[in-house]
């Protein structure tokens, strides 16, 4: 190399043929060596199926939760100390409230945008858990949890449990009458555990309920730091495994166990998913703006001897509340001890059982079917009638229990006897899942026998001849028919869609002159 001074021209040439971007890529690649992997990442293929969006809703509502949560943390005071309310909401003035409640009311009425952000936070939490559940159902019914993705299924289930816990704890923080009652019930559930329950209760609460004012600050740090941190770690592992193992995909033309077919990361998927992030945030903001949620100033600060009527917890706790309601009063007492089975079974054993079934399902199915192969192609639910029936039965069971959490409201609304409603739910809890399982199984079997099911039907024109004979002719293809028929091909090295660009020269394995980014490995 000659020691010539660099000129503007040589500097520009040194950057490479793509100007400043080349420069940035060069500098980063010198240090991190990311050009090769980076290019592969830009070409990463995302299958085009709407059901792959459900997990994105969960991810983006988590983003909303973090963002709104940071805002709320700036104003929330996690303290059970009692003070006199002097804020702007007249009906509460002069009342003794906890600092936690006081600060939550002040966020709602005293902080600019505070009510909106609080409601967005609450709505996002409900959406977060809901989207995880629906996403999980998609994974289950299509068999996406099968080998090699069992670990990601377990991580996802863990995240669902943490999301529910996080939701319950967050809901308890404002220390209003409704959430305080929920906390009282939570304490009693902890207390119901044999051998260790009363110890766990007094340890956590710093004494017998309501304890010594430590539960709010403890729940606060669990809510804003500990569980989010664990969720972050699990989320990283979840997405890391997703990238490493690549997406599953439905069967279709050109789709095999050894490839992924869809749209590239950049720019197509990036545009769609970033847009979707904004849509989720926007939808949450609209809910926060127009749909009131948890108006704690109407409930008042928690007092242990006060109670409200016909209130339900957030939706994801409903199945547990329903289970508690329909459980008969079977307390075990003997040998100087009491085991409150009427609480311990529905509120501790039952959810433990449900989540453990979820955890072991991939292993269970592997054992039952003897199928130990790697699977990247998804099942259609109808092709696995037993699994589909089992999943539908589980969802039916949880839904019946969810509905059972409003026995009193249903009895009032339909003017029925509470006893009748209660017994109906006790019976439905056992009958509905069985019926749903058999009906689902039957429907799946039925669908398997239908020719061309799941394929988009091409419309036909029916002609009747003068002699009464019928003939049909197919109509021309409709929009949307086309891409389904196309043979998948590698991501083109160059994507130029300006109308002035050279005419049709699409990428194909043969026509790529460089040979780069071809089917490899």
């Amino acid at each position, binding site marked *: 190399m000659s020691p010539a001074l660099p000129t503007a021209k*040589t500097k520009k040439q040194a950057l490479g043929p793509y100007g400043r971007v080349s420069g940035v890529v060069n500098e980063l690649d010198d240090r991190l060596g990311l050009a090769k992997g980076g290019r592969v990442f830009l070409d990463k*293929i995302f*299958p*085009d199926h709407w059901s792959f969006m459900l997990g994105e809703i969960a991810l983006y509502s988590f983003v909303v939760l973090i963002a709104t949560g940071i805002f709320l943390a700036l104003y929330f005071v996690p303290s059970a100390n009692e003070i006199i309310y002097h804020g702007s909401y007249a009906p509460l003035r002069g009342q003794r409230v906890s600092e936690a409640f006081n600060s939550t009311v002040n966020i709602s009425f005293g902080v600019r*945008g505070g009510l*909106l952000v609080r409601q967005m936070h609450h709505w996002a939490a409900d959406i977060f858990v809901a989207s995880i559940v629906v996403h999980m159902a998609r994974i289950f019914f299509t068999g996406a949890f099968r080998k090699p993705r069992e670990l990601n299924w377990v991580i996802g289930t863990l995240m669902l449990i943490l999301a529910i816990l996080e939701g319950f704890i967050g809901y308890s923080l404002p220390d209003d009458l409704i959430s305080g009652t929920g906390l009282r019930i939570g304490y*009693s559930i902890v*207390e*119901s*555990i*044999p051998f260790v329950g*009363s110890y766990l209760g007094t340890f*956590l609460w710093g*004494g017998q*309920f309501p304890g*010594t004012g430590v539960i709010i600050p403890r729940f606060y740090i669990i809510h804003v730091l500990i569980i989010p941190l664990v969720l972050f770690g699990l989320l990283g592992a979840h997405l890391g495994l997703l990238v490493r193992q*690549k997406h599953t995909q439905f069967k279709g033309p050109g789709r095999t*166990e050894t*490839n*992924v*077919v*869809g*749209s590239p990361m950049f720019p*197509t998927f990036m545009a*769609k998913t*970033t*847009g979707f992030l*904004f*849509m989720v*945030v*926007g939808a*949450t*903001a*609209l809910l926060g703006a*127009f749909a009131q949620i948890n108006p704690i100033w109407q409930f008042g600060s928690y007092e*242990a*001897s*006060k109670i*409200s009527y016909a209130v339900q917890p957030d939706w994801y706790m409903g199945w547990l509340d329903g289970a508690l309601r329909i*459980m008969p*009063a*079977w307390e075990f007492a003997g040998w100087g001890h009491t085991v*409150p089975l009427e609480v311990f079974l529905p509120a501790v054993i039952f959810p433990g059982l449900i989540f453990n079934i979820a955890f072991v399902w991939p292993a269970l199915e592997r054992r039952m079917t003897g199928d130990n192969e790697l699977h990247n192609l998804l099942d259609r639910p109808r092709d696995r009638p037993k699994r589909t029936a089992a999943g539908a039965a589980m969802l039916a069971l949880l839904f019946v229990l969810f509905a059972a959490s409003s026995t009193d409201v249903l009895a009032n609304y339909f003017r029925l006897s509470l*006893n009748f409603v209660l017994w109906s739910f006790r019976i439905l809890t056992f009958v509905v899942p069985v019926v749903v399982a058999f009906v689902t199984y039957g429907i799946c079997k039925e669908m398997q026998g239908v020719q061309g099911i799941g394929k988009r039907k091409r419309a036909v024109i029916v002609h009747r001849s003068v002699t009464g004979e019928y003939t049909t002719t197919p109509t021309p293809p409709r929009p949307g028919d086309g*891409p389904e028929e*196309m043979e*998948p091909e*590698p991501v*083109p090295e*160059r*994507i130029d*869609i*300006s109308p002035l*660009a050279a005419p049709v*020269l*699409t990428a194909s394995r043969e026509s790529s*002159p460089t040979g*780069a980014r071809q089917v*490899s*490995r």
Partner: protein
Amino acid sequence: MSEDNHEPSRTKVPMPIATLSDPHMGDAARNPQRAEGIIAVILVVAIVFIAGFGAAYWQNWNPWIIGGTLGLGLFLLGFGLTAWGKYLMPQGPFVEERHVLASSPEERDSMAAALVERSTVVVKRRKLLGGLFAIGAGIFGIVALFPLLRSLGPVPGTSLDTSDWRKGRVLVDSSGRSVTRDTLVVGGIMTVYPAGLQNTDQGQAVDQTVLIRVQDSNLVTAKGRETWAPDGYVAYSKVCTHLGCPVGLYEQQLELLVCPCHQSMFNVRNGAIPQFGPAPRPLPQLPLYFDTDGILKAQAGFDQAVGPGFFERTTTQENGT
């Protein structure tokens, strides 16, 4: 190395081209001006709303205006971007081959070999050291667990078995007024606490008691409770035996106490035996008497622990007498 990378002779990478007539472009891309125009309008509306959000926030208008502008602005912004991605960018099917995740059998064996051989040759040779370390770590685990939990709060002891009701304790309402013979009319109900504890957490949560006046002036709710309800004043713990909610509803006609949480119903006349719902036990009854000044007091404490069941709970506890 970097010198080589920065060779000025590098030229652009020749690549095949996807064009508008490429089948990977959706139908909207056949008329890109129109599609672009529609998306542009959406984005402009989004910009207007987002600017409106700024104004609404600055001016501190109603929360629903702040949220409505923010929500519509972001939603439309996202909608426009998604539409751009969906209608004006090349769609699948493009294909990418999967890596084979699994290593070769040799690589697997080599890892297993390292694990097995090194542990047998190096680690297991010093069984004493390994054993001692495992014992130390194990003991630390156990030792650390219990004191850590213990430092969170006190052990329950007998605190769950006792309330603050004692012989002679005056019953007061939440503002500290005591109860006389004509405080309640027949069918009336109120919540009472031990005098002095009406505003404490303990008084509110544990000692809370519901006082009802029934028609029957010498109501005997159970054998041995002949004197517990003077002048029809009968008192039960307000803490539900199911999950500890306050038993806050009173069905006056049927003389039933109802817990609003899970609809357990307790019959006031027979010692609050649960008549319906998941509650397993009667609400403990507080024995009452009127002193010579006509002030209502407790004859004794509750004869058992109040509230939901727990493992150490026995059915034969006596306290506060």
